[in-house]
């Protein structure tokens, strides 16, 4: 009843550990899989190692979380054994998240992570924390999005998902462009903003980077709207991500058009047990309302 599929990859339940959360090490991904995640995503990996921003990098506020970790990662070659460990031990699909600053580099990173045989590759063309370095030209330009995906599809046989930013008025168009490039699916959304938090006693922005991407319950309505738009413009499978903390949130995402549901900040609110809890809550809802499959609920909010 809770089974779902992403470009031919089968998930036992629709919850997906989203990129950037508990995904630094292979053992950490396996731990989240054991906690009940239907699939797990690595932290985004680049060709070369990146230190990221100095602390403070992750902050909570009354309606969510703001982060500017700055895409820290050990580089693709160093990350490879971690992905391999997860693929070997997780017993659920592993999604390798990648990012780069040039189209050529995207190809190289995709080639390296493919050696670990993850079930999916997620292409992060949308991180707002290093916008001028990485995000904007790819995530907000339909033409370049197409070329990036084309490049990656040439070097790997693994299905490719494009992770999109909500920080554009044209997300449906970008999704279509990714599809044109050969994308097998869409992950949406990345964090919103960037935003800022100021501590008034310190009279300063708190993040060392001053600005950071917003996640958590505050962004759920934006995520739903984006997933709805994407589903309207393409038939690709969607991992709907953004502010999901309960089974009800997850069902909303599925009704907007998602085939699976990303969970990230929710781990803060409900702990790693969130995957199991959300799955149970979805099941209870489906039983109460008489739905027999995720597929049956998918995109149902589009019906007139």
């Amino acid at each position, binding site marked *: 009843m809770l089974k779902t599929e992403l470009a031919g990859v089968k998930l036992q339940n629709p919850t997906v550990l989203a990129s*950037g*959360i*508990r*995904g*630094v*090490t*292979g*053992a*950490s*991904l*396996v*731990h*989240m899989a054991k906690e009940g995640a239907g699939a797990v995503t690595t*932290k985004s990996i680049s060709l070369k*190692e*990146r*230190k*990221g921003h*100095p*602390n*403070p*990098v*992750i*902050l*909570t*506020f*009354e*309606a969510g*979380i703001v*982060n500017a*970790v700055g895409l*820290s*990662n*050990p*580089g693709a070659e*160093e*990350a490879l054994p*971690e992905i391999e460990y997860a693929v070997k031990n997780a017993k659920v699909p592993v999604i390798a998240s990648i990012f780069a600053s040039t189209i050529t580099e995207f190809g190289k990173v995709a080639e390296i992570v493919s050696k670990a045989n993850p079930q999916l590759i997620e292409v992060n063309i949308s991180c707002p924390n290093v916008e001028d370095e990485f995000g904007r030209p790819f995530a907000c330009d339909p033409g370049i999005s197409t070329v990036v995906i084309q490049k990656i599809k040439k070097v790997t046989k693994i299905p490719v998902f494009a992770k999109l930013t909500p920080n554009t008025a044209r997300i449906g168009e970008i999704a279509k462009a990714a599809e044109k490039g050969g994308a097998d699916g869409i992950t949406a959304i990345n964090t919103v903003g960037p935003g800022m938090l100021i*501590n008034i*006693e*310190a*009279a*300063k922005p*708190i993040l*060392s980077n001053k600005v950071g991407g917003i996640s958590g*319950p505050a962004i759920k309505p934006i995520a739903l709207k984006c997933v709805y738009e994407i589903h309207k413009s393409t038939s690709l499978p969607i991992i709907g991500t953004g502010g999901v903390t309960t089974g009800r949130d997850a069902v909303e995402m599925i009704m907007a058009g998602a085939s699976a549901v990303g969970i*990230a*900040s929710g*781990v*803060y*609110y409900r*702990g*790693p047990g969130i995957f199991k809890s959300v799955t149970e809550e979805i099941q209870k809802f489906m039983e109460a309302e008489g739905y027999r499959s995720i597929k049956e609920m998918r995109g149902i909010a589009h019906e007139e």
Partner: protein
Amino acid sequence: MKNDEFIVARIEEAIQESKDSKTFILPNALNSRPGQFVMLWLPGAGEKPISISGEKNGKFSVTVCAVGPVSKAMYKLKKGDKLGFRGPFGTHYTIPKDSTSIAVVGGGYGSAPLAYLSEVAIAQGKKVYFIEGARNKARLLFAERMKKAGAEVLLSTDDGSEGIKGYSTDVLKNLLKTHKIDKVFTCGPEIMMKKVAEISQKFKIKCEISMERYMKCGIGLCGQCAVDELGICLCKEGPILPGEKALSLKEFGSYRRDSTGKKVEW
């Protein structure tokens, strides 16, 4: 909704502990337990996870040693200066109800949470053996405070400038041979804690260690402090771990990961 925002407060008192360390008392209640930590933020300088070194009467303290750029900037603070914190986070030491004697083993900067633990244990009527090792006399922390609190203080230094010349682990071994100790607690360099855990295991005495890793969020999200091969985050399921659990971790006393996630040998 759940929220762990920074609270910025003025330092009520700054106490010089050793040549390069200070204890700051902040006028806030945390409802903390010994072993837990806070994320300490000096606006403009940065943020660091740091053990709570005491809490009573609605005030808590942290002890900052001038080591890296952020802690050096924090070390310079004086009474009245502003300091931010969020927390308390993580697991805590547990003093068994039926215990009569405990031993704590601190090395270098690791003594701060043990001083807090010892004061709590003494208040509960336990006999506390406070074992502390350091490179030299100038680096010993809390020895005087612990004597005053009523602990039996046993010191060791690498150069013999105070207490016995040698390691705190040797002091522990001798103590366990001659005294009935109900539980051992340790915090300090990982190699030392590993020895303490092994010695306790050999003597069949329960032990708790404090394991530290590079931390970013402190709230179980970023996964930077995940340890092999359990994959647990030490900001949530640590820093305090039972000795056996720590010994079961592949990386305990062997390697850690830096801010990028790259493995670094101890």
